């Protein structure tokens, strides 16, 4: 390291040693693998899974499936956090599976679709495409429910709340429980 004088290099090494001496205050093995996911999206992922409990699907194709399939469309904000999180849990007695789609045209048998913010230019096309399926759409895009979505997550004073477009949900033949409606920040009928 020619850029550092010998004396400077010495100082540098002492500091490095110091950092590494102070360091092992915690068990490195206990590392949380998913720290790069912001807490906001951990909460949003939990909402997504929770919604399954309050929605009744009537499509035979979906009710026959022995798992609940959650689709993530576009740029995935949940990372592997959501996969790890649903690995061991069941909802209504069924396991949960996460599928990812880069193109909305590949969407087929899923129960819930998370529409990532990266899809904002194609929202109309996406809504049209999935009209033929029975899918609960959820997103944190601004004014999502006003733009044809079913459940919109909003951040109100740092807390995650949701808006429900009941009309859109009914149109697709899904039924939403009154308990969930009661908790909604706003209902669009």
């Amino acid at each position, binding site marked *: 390291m020619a850029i550092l004088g010998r004396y400077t290099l010495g100082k540098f090494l002492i500091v490095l040693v110091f950092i590494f001496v102070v360091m092992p205050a*915690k068990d490195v093995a206990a590392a949380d693998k998913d720290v790069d996911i912001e807490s906001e999206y951990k909460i949003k992922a939990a909402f997504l899974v929770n919604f399954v409990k309050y929605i009744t699907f009537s499509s035979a194709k979906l009710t026959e499936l022995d798992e609940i399939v959650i689709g993530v469309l576009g740029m995935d904000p949940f990372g592997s956090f959501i996969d790890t*999180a649903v690995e061991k849990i069941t909802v209504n007695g069924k396991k949960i599976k996460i599928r990812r789609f880069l193109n909305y045209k590949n969407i087929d048998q899923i129960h819930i679709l998370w529409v990532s913010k990266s899809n904002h230019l194609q929202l109309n096309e996406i809504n049209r495409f999935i009209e033929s399926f029975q899918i609960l759409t959820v997103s944190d895009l601004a004014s999502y429910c006003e733009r044809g979505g079913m459940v919109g997550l909003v951040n109100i004073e740092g807390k*995650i709340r949701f808006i429900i477009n009941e009309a859109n949900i009914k149109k697709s033949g899904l039924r939403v429980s009154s308990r969930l409606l009661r908790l909604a920040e706003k209902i669009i009928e």
Partner: protein
Amino acid sequence: MNFRSNILVSLTLIFLIISLSYAKDQSLNIDKLSPEEIMMLDVETLMNIQVTSVSKKSEKLINTAAAIFVITADDIRRMGATSIPETLRVVPGLVVARIDASSWAVSSRGFNGRFANKLLVLVDGRTVYSPVFAGVNWDAQDTMISDIARIEVIRGPGAAMWGANAVNGVINIITKRASETVGSTLTVGSGNKDLSITEWRYGKKIDPDKYFRIYTKYTNRDDFIDANKNASSDAWQTIRGGFRMDWEFLSKDSVTFQGDVYDGQGGGTVTLFTENSLTSLIPDTFDSERDFGGGNLLGRWERTFDDESSFSLQLYYDRQERKTEVLESDVDTFDIDFQHQFDFGTRHEIIWGLGYRLINDRFDNTFHSSFDPDTDLLNLYSAFIQDKITFLDSRLGLILGAKIEHNDFTGFEFQPNLRLVYKHDDRHSLWSAISRAVRVPARSNNVQLVQRIVAAPGPLVFAVVGDSDFESEELTAYEIGYRTKISKTVSVDIATFYNDYNNLRTLELNFAARPPAPVPATPSVPAHVISPIFGDNKMDGETYGAECSTNIILNSWWRVQFNYTFLRMQLHLDNSSKDFLMNSEKAEGDSPQQQFSIRSSMDLIESIQFETILGYVDSLPNQNINNYLRLELRLAWSPSDSIEISFVGSNLLDNQHPEFTPELINTLRTETERSFYGQIKWQF
């Protein structure tokens, strides 16, 4: 490391051990829950968890076709910086040097100086680049540090969007919305150099859509010392206050109204040629006091139609007053800015805008420093448009943009750019840009600054003067960058550039072009002859370099960041140039060739944070400044949710070192000393 550093290290360790044993558990923190546990929470619980909405920067950044670095509120808190320039030291590509207690040299990609004129700085959309001095008066820039939401630093030209003077970079300092600062925060701190810093903020929700906050801040910083340990007279004191109100209507409109007032004092020991020197022929050395003050009011209305369209209208008024023994100035700025953003078809994201700025200045001239005319009214008109066109399922983005401005000195300026970003997948993205930017002259065209007086046979005064033929300095910049997430925990951001400068400012002493002019005696000033050292554009140059930032998340409680900056600057005077007195070409030795920093941020346990920043700055050959290493340590302990106690040690590796020599105004160079600082922050 000497004896005192060893004591410091031991004390730090002792404190650590004691606090570890006192730490107490905290309430529901979702970072402590396992992924399955989070999934098992019911809707009611989920609805009541406070999330820290730390900007979607990782998602956004990978899509950006520019060298951008974001300092978050969390970074600022962890670093324990007490002033805005200190927070910028960790940014790759920036050079931050403290000239003395109250002045700074901050620049991006070279050309550093106290009057660094190629870096644009905005605070909440209000420019703080002084159109008079062509630079930023860092002594007057501050706010409640814990209310800063983030600082976005863009290296390289930002002129196509932000306009002239965004040549080598743009710094956007963004404060939190009033809805994010509800409650009171009182911070009290003291140390051996930062003698006393107190800041207090009170925020309140007026009704569900309306929030406001007020703050006040007092700072008192001690004099720095010179190489011989004599104190200078550069102590820095400021007092300021401000408010911010945010309304949101129907999730469509938001209106912000904010303002600040401030008053402060800096100084330094200066050695200047004044009117006394006309008879004595030697400069006067005296302790100069610098008083500054000002205020601003800003209003902004933003309307979002949906994610596809929004506009904003912003108006502000800003006043800056400065007074020293050699010059007094008042500058009033009025600015109006409109921006509209919409999607066109499925491929185009378009932003366009219009702006107008009116600047009114007034100077009280002295023999040493004067402006002619001593008051002026300047107009700046601007318009810009940018189109982002996406291809390949939005993976390829082409950005075309340009800004046209008209200023009163050089007329129309056209500043276009072309950017390309390719996102291979969520892990890799590549970007490139070609841009043109200019640094416009403004009031420096009318300045006269006395530099030297000699006997020849009567008093002959050499003075730097502006020149009405002085043109804008021009840059064509070529940039390539690459961002990658090597794994879930390691991300790397590399930016490289080649900057080609034309028409750089030189200071010519050419008797044939501008002969010495006699000035007759007045009652206060004896007769003398002025030989102008006039501004001209007889220098070209190129700079190239690379910046690399690596983030490593070692585990849930420890992350490390490595930043490295390499810069080469080469300046070339034209053959016809007679810039031999001011040595403009030597400015290439005013910016360090290499810099690196290692930052380690640890949550030792939930209530204890430990931050280490080790920074290296290369020597400045033009200023006889050696390379130096800076070590900063911060230990913070939160015994409860509402109290944080922290200790900061800065420059721990040496007793003192100089960081920069001030240019143009001959000021005693002072040195940065080892310093300690303790602070208590109480939120209620």
